[in-house]
């Protein structure tokens, strides 16, 4: 190496050293190891959840999933109420959040005048930057009281005694806290993710398609309905699943507003708990088997979100990486 350098360097000029081959090797290996570290992280999270939760799985077996007892006195733990709470809050978040997100994406790509697009997109994306705990405080102190006064109480008076609806929508203690409130707040937290991915998907569609539809006399709505949605459909489903992944694991906001009840209720107005809120609530006081059971809950959450996110990423990556 040095012989080559000497050959070309003028004797009087300051010699520029060729970097040593070792640095090249070290740099390459360091970046390779850093990239491998990402794989190790995921494997580590997976392993720590399984190992940490193992005592609970071994003690309760399959019954851990189906039991709804959570009794710290007698060391009996079951995940069912938390699983139901997690799924129902996430489902409500999707029911509320998906139409809103799709409407926003259509507004941003088809309706908004060009000068208006940027500020609106920024505002929507800033919704994602607001920390989870702030959503929790807003939910607890601002949204929940209003929700109790203007929705829960009037609604309970109307539906009381009705079959099915009377059970699902009746609130025994209208405090504003409960599964439905948590779901609505989660909806606002996942909107920016679904809306901005859908917006990018719609922007990716070649404008020739859109123009030809307008050319045969289609209205904006018909272009969205018959051209854009079929084109971007798969990736929009991916975006929705990405939002679902967020909603399943969201912790602080839910912990504030879900009510943290350890029992199962048939009404979405009643307090409940999710896997994440249960862990956040009890973790610091938990010892022994309770701690293992909480980590086992984390393990269940990990596998559910992992599957959802893998499907979401595969669907979204068909059009563009996200």
């Amino acid at each position, binding site marked *: 190496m040095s012989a080559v350098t000497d050959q070309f360097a003028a004797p009087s000029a300051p010699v520029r050293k060729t970097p040593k081959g070792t640095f090249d090797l070290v740099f390459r290996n360091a970046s390779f190891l850093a990239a491998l570290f990402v794989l190790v992280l995921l494997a580590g999270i997976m392993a720590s*959840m399984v190992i940490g939760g193992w005592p609970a799985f071994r003690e309760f077996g399959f019954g851990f999933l189906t039991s709804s007892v959570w009794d710290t006195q007698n060391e009996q733990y079951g995940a069912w109420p938390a699983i139901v709470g997690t799924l129902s809050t996430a489902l409500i978040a999707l029911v509320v959040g998906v139409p809103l997100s799709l409407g926003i994406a259509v507004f941003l790509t088809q309706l908004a005048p060009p000068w208006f697009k940027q500020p609106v997109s920024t505002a929507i994306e800033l919704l994602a930057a607001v920390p989870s705990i702030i959503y929790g405080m807003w939910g607890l102190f601002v949204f929940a009281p209003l929700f109790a006064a203007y929705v829960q109480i009037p609604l309970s008076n109307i539906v009381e005694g009705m079959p099915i609806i009377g059970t699902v929508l009746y609130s025994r203690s209208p405090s504003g806290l409960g599964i439905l409130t948590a779901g609505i707040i989660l909806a606002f937290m996942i909107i920016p993710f679904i809306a901005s991915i859908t917006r990018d998907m719609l922007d990716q569609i070649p404008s020739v398609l859109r123009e030809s539809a307008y050319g045969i006399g289609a209205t904006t709505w018909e272009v969205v309905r018959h051209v854009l949605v079929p084109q971007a459909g798969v990736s929009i489903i991916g975006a929705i699943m990405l939002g679902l992944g967020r909603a399943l694991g969201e*912790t602080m906001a839910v912990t504030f507003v879900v009510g943290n009840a350890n029992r199962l209720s048939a009404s979405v107005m009643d307090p409940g708990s999710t896997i994440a809120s249960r862990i956040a609530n009890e973790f610091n006081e938990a010892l022994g088997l309770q701690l293992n059971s909480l980590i086992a809950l984390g393990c269940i959450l990990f596998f559910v979100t992992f599957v959802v*996110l893998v499907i979401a990423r595969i669907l979204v990556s068909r059009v563009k990486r996200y």
Partner: protein
Amino acid sequence: MSLATPSTVRKLPEVTWGRVRQSRRTADRLMKVIATGFTLIAISVLFWILGMLIVKGLGGLSATTFTQVTPGPGTEGGGLANAIVGSIVLTFLGIAVATPIGVLAGTYLAEYGKGSKLADLIRFINDILLSAPSILIGLFVYVIMVEPFRGYSGWAGGVALGIIAIPVIVRTTEDMLRLVPGPLREAGAALGAPPSVVITSITWRAAKSGMVTGILLALARIAGETAPLIFTALNNNFWFSPNLIGGVSNLPVTIYQFASAPYENWQQLAWAGSLIITVSILVLSIIARRIVRGGK
């Protein structure tokens, strides 16, 4: 009506044609109104939250907020000084952990691993980690750092935040390096520079502002994280000791504990803390966005 004038003859098809168009037009208008309305709803939620923070948070802000430590239960007065300092220390510890790993991993994906199956897998897994629930990262660090060392610590908190920041930095670094045109690299290589030099002094330099944006976004992402800190750094009401062993006070966990407590001064401090943290995160995100747009 009785007169079959050419005008009525012409009107007939127009009426039916008009009726079809009317329903299509109504559907179109309805959709436009709904889409605009939905956008307004989402934006007003943002302003509603910001307004609430300003109204309730400004009342709790005073000089003592920044000079006094957090009060114990039932103690009057107090501030957030230790929590603010603790949050800054933990956040920067997290970024210090994440930046070298994230930048190097992103570099590998963009420069060395092009087209390799392993790089595709790593990219995919990184995207999964990007949206993995932060509470799981907290549990993971609890299992690997808090339980074995028998105690909460600022180090564990910093590592947890770092793990959350890594995928953000990997992702933005890779995206930004991909934007650097190939001929720039070829020019460097033609001068005889080995790959590492081309990357560090040509590609990195060209992508610098984008990579800084990634780090800023990661900073904004972890500054408000609460869940992972509950299991790792926890909280306390004292100045942190420089060795970072034991609970380290920080804003998010302080807000979490103070918000639903029955003491009025605690609640006021929770609001003040929320205002401080949200404003700093929003400012960071907006600066990061500006850099990206300026660089384009």
